[in-house]
């Protein structure tokens, strides 16, 4: 335990100043890791980027619309908490809409989910620049979101994400198997009595809400990174999605803490440090997995079962 105290020691003097931000950042990472496993298993990584980008565009829309709405209501300029709250609400709305638009399935949808995801990403990126091209403050806000500065998070943000993390964990535990079934085989999910479209929209709503709430607090880089990278690490470490669903949040939480310590000691921005650490762990765990697989395969050769019939086709490549 001494080494933990030694490692976390440097954070103590700055806790009063940055404690809320660190807590909020760690909880955001925890919340994002679970939907990240589902996105990764369904090979929809880019949905995370598109939803995060749409959320950023939502902030831009909020910052553009608020002065117009305030002028029409003869309230003069609106600044501070009200402006932040309005922008955050727009971010959540945009993220939810983007997640719903990119979800697979739906009879009225046109094109593949990938093409819709690409469209959402590009449209959102372009709109967020165009809307704030003549607003120095707004452009600065978007640049801040893209660069990800976790340190602006408040105690209220930490509390909000504590609630979201709790709900995510409870929901994940209750619906774990059904979530996995929807991921592995949606057809069978229908056969097992699950209403596929409702589950698809539910997953999209969950992803949109978490990303939408997280973007104004932590920014694009942190949100997209924490959505995808812990899930990639967990996939390298675990053979089953069930395990990935709890390993990914643990990795996200631990890595975020380590990243914040390094960032504080070196006086670097925390979000890029966390993402760099996570990104570094991906090839490392991949190597570990390869090493473990080769050792395991040598020790226990995967013999065919006695009843295994001869195959006329070659086994599928892994």
């Amino acid at each position, binding site marked *: 335990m001494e080494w933990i105290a030694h490692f976390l020691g440097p954070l103590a003097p700055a806790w009063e100043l940055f404690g809320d931000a660190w807590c909020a950042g760690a909880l955001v990472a925890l919340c994002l890791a679970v939907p990240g496993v589902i996105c990764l*298993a369904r090979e929809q990584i880019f949905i995370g980027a598109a939803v995060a980008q749409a959320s950023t565009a939502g902030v831009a829309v909020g910052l553009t619309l608020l002065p117009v709405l305030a002028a029409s209501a003869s309230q003069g300029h609106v600044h501070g908490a009200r402006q932040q709250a309005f922008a955050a609400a727009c971010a959540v709305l945009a993220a939810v809409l983007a997640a719903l638009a990119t979800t697979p399935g739906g009879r009225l949808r046109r094109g593949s989910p990938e093409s819709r995801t690409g469209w959402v990403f590009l449209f959102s990126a372009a709109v967020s620049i165009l809307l704030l091209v003549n607003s120095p403050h707004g452009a600065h806000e978007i640049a801040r979101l893209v660069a990800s500065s976790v340190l602006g998070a408040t105690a209220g943000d930490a509390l909000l994400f504590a609630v979201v993390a709790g709900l995510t964990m409870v929901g994940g535990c209750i619906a774990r198997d059904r979530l996995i079934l929807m991921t592995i085989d949606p*057809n069978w999910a229908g056969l097992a009595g699950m209403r596929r479209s409702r589950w698809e929209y539910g997953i999209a709503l969950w992803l949109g809400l978490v990303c939408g709430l997280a973007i104004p607090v932590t920014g694009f880089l942190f949100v997209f990174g924490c959505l995808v990278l812990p899930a990639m690490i967990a996939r390298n470490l675990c053979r*089953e999605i069930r395990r990935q669903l709890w390993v990914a949040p643990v990795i996200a939480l631990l890595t975020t803490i380590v990243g914040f310590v390094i960032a504080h000691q070196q006086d670097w921005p925390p979000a890029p440090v966390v993402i760099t650490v996570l990104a570094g762990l991906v090839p490392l765990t991949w190597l570990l997995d390869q090493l473990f697989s080769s050792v395991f395969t040598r020790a226990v050769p995967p013999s065919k079962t006695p*009843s295994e019939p*001869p195959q006329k*086709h*070659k086994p599928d490549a892994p």
Partner: protein
Amino acid sequence: MTLSTRTLVHPDLSTTHGVIIIARAVRLAYGAHTILDDVTLTVHSGERWALLGRNGSGKSTFINALMGEIAPAAGVLGINRDLVLTDGIGLVPQRVDLPPYLRTTVRECVDLGLIGCEGNRATRRSRLTATMQKLGLNDLLHRDMRTLSGGQRQRVFLARALVREPRLLILDEPTAALDRPGEEQFFAAITAQSGIRAMTILLVTHDQQLAQQFCTHRAVFAGGAVCCENIELSAKQRIELAGERL
């Protein structure tokens, strides 16, 4: 495929009558394009039906309608209410592909077949163990699904269907990728399972010989119509089938 109770469940059907599926003058269409017209058939408990026909003859459309994916444009298509309520339906699809980067094991995949089934944890575990043993999958329990051959994967998907102990098993060209010994082993496993509980089987196939060997009835899909007939069973087959039902 979503089980739509609006189109699927037939309130008048019950196990006491022994009727599992009923179709009366059913017309199935995609928009204005009619695929099947005036389909009439009745499937009783324990019967094994072969759905025969060329590609595009409407076999899969009929299965989709049965699963509630397509609503009949006309007629009545019903499935036994008890089957839907107890989730006693198993499906082995034609394609057993998983996303190439998806990481899951045989155990996890088969275990997911129990979702929606009744029973406590111990019952479910014993079902899982028994099914794995019966299909010779015990050695593959912790294997990554991506490392299995096509035949092994097919058996895993059969295990996922059988672990539900289904009253109705739908096999959509399940042995298309298997050779003859693999095919025989596949159907031997189903026969062993149907001996425990009267299981009705719908087998979609092109193989007349397989239909003759394994099924009691056949429905031939051709030209948008369906022709149903009993299959003449050999004395040996009759004895085997009677033994399974007992």
